[in-house]
């Protein structure tokens, strides 16, 4: 990775942090509704893993799928930040035309196959995407990001088993942030190390630090290459931490300030910026001007676009339920 790429990565993570902070502000202004789950603290995982995958190339992208904490995964895969923001605003220009909202960002043009609210549901969907890629003989893989809590669903076990038996090219990325809403992993789950849970499925698995993007990228490269070249599944776990509450109504009464501070000391943006400063790749001043640029871009491009975009038309309520232009040969009506 060259110096320009390293700077770009730092800027991306800073952008993602500010993007999420800004959605929080918009939520407080009641411009964004529903449930809103922010990714702050975990940026190194999606940024690092997807940096090692095929993203940003449209239909050639690997397939990416995740849960409801999905804004950043969508953007890193190739979705336009302004369209993601417009989706949160419920606008017709949003990535899902205002029909999905925060938890259901989709961008089929970039093979971002969605954010899903049902915990654990993306496991089999990801395996199916991988099955299709393999069936078509393409070298695309599927990448599924989910939390630690999702591993307690039956779909986790069912899908690990089938992905292994059928040798599907799918990378399962477990973002272990130690909590499922307010329930600490030790209170819900027999083992804290999630990668150990797949050993009964004869699948490669490993665990890594998810706060250091260099570590993430190194581990992810190996995993992505393995899945692509061997055409087999891989389960990779990153230890990470979310800074904000689970969603907006969460007062975080289930964890201590001390615990938060321990993790924040290893903030992924801070770790990486310090490393780049030490290596002489950026200066404090450059970082400050990057921050300014990002603020400006988010305000004057991303948010402005969302604010000024039109809402969907009520006349279009019934669009997209079924195929809107079905072939009468299959659909009918029946000739009398």
């Amino acid at each position, binding site marked *: 990775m060259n110096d320009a790429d390293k700077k770009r990565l730092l800027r991306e993570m800073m952008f993602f942090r500010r993007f999420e902070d800004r959605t929080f502000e918009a939520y407080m202004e009641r411009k964004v509704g529903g449930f809103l789950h922010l990714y702050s603290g975990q940026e190194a995982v999606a940024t690092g893993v997807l940096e090692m995958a095929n993203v940003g190339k449209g239909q050639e992208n690997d397939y990416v799928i995740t849960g409801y904490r999905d804004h950043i995964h969508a953007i890193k895969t190739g979705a336009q930040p302004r369209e993601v923001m417009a989706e949160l605003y419920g606008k017709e220009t949003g990535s899902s035309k205002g029909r999905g909202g925060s938890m259901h960002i989709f961008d089929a043009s970039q093979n971002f*196959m969605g954010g899903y609210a049902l915990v654990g549901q993306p496991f089999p*969907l990801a*395996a*199916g995407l991988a099955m299709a890629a393999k069936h078509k003989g393409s070298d695309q893989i599927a990448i599924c990001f989910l939390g630690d809590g999702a591993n307690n669903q*039956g779909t986790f076990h069912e899908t690990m088993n089938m992905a292994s038996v059928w040798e599907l090219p799918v990378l399962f990325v477990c973002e272990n942030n130690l909590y499922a809403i307010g329930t600490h992993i030790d209170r819900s789950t027999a083992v804290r190390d999630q990668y150990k849970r797949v050993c009964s499925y004869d699948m490669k698995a490993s665990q890594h630090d998810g706060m250091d993007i260099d570590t993430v990228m190194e581990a992810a490269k190996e995993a992505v290459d393995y899945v692509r070249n061997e055409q087999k599944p891989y389960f990779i776990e990153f230890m990470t931490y979310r800074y904000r509450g689970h969603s907006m109504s969460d007062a975080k009464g289930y964890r201590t300030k001390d615990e938060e501070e321990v993790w924040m000391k290893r903030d992924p943006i801070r770790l990486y910026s310090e490393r780049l400063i030490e290596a002489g790749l950026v200066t404090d001043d450059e970082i400050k001007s990057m921050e300014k640029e990002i603020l400006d871009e988010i305000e004057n491009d991303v948010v402005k676009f969302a604010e000024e975009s039109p809402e969907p038309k009520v006349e279009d309520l019934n669009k997209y*339920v079924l*195929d809107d232009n079905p072939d009468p040969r299959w*659909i009918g*009506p029946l000739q009398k």
Partner: protein
Amino acid sequence: MAETAYWEAIRRAHDEEMANDSMVIAMGEDIGVVGGTYKATSGLYDKYGPQRIIDTPISENSYTGIGIGASMAGMRPVIEIMSINFALLALDTLINAAAKIRYMSGGQLQCPIVMRTPGGTAHQLAAQHSARLARMFMSTSGLRVVTPRSPMDAYGMLKSAIRSNDPVIIIEHEQMYNLKEDIPDEEFFRPLEGAEIVREGTDITLIGYNFSVHLCLEAAKRLEADGISAEVVDLRVLKPIDRETIRTSVEKTHRVVVAEEDEAPVGVGSEIITGIIEDCFFALDSQPVRIHAADVPVPYNAKLEKAAIPSADDVYHGALKALGKI
């Protein structure tokens, strides 16, 4: 024309569609090496191989989800669920995912899956193998639900379902797999929308779907012997319902019986009769009659089972009631 059993019709549809399009696959428990519990995929494993006729582990929710994921990336999976009772395990991926993905994505993605499953009562299979859940699927936005009564429809609707871009549930029936009928040798398709008048009549309309159409036809014969001309409507499709055909028939006969094999509360009959009341209330000369199963889990004992499930005799008596003869 060749005499074809219902299961053979389904097999033929799979075979032709798989030959026509390499993106069509089938998946389910024991559908490959064994050829399917009701032989609906027999012989196809040898022809198309394990990559396209996929024997799955007993993981209904996730193999349905895998089919859905594959469909989002362009494949056309036909997912067999051994019995509709087991489809309850797949409701999350089916209803929360397949039925909603087109909408949630603002029309960017589609899930062209077909889920096939027998959904009636057989003989003495008891409560956990006798569910009839048509009413549950027909209340879900984003699905198509069809109920072929004959080899013609079993073949032609499966072919259409595979080509349709929507998720389609095909509810078959344990007692119909051996039902035989002559069907054309040339390829044909039967549409996924539209009810059908399967017997014309003037005095009363008997409405059924899937197996209960046969109960209606049998009842119509008995009524004929009594000098009563019954029209029989096969709904064919539970979602979307063809209200126009129902209205036209009721406006002609002025009396109606709806027969379903399922339990009554919140059933197919409730929906059909509500539609009739909304569409042509003043055409009715008598109260509509619902024929349905008793509101109990299906019992094992043969006598009790018989009492729980509607018969042609029940439809016949329902018609007499609607005609004011009893």
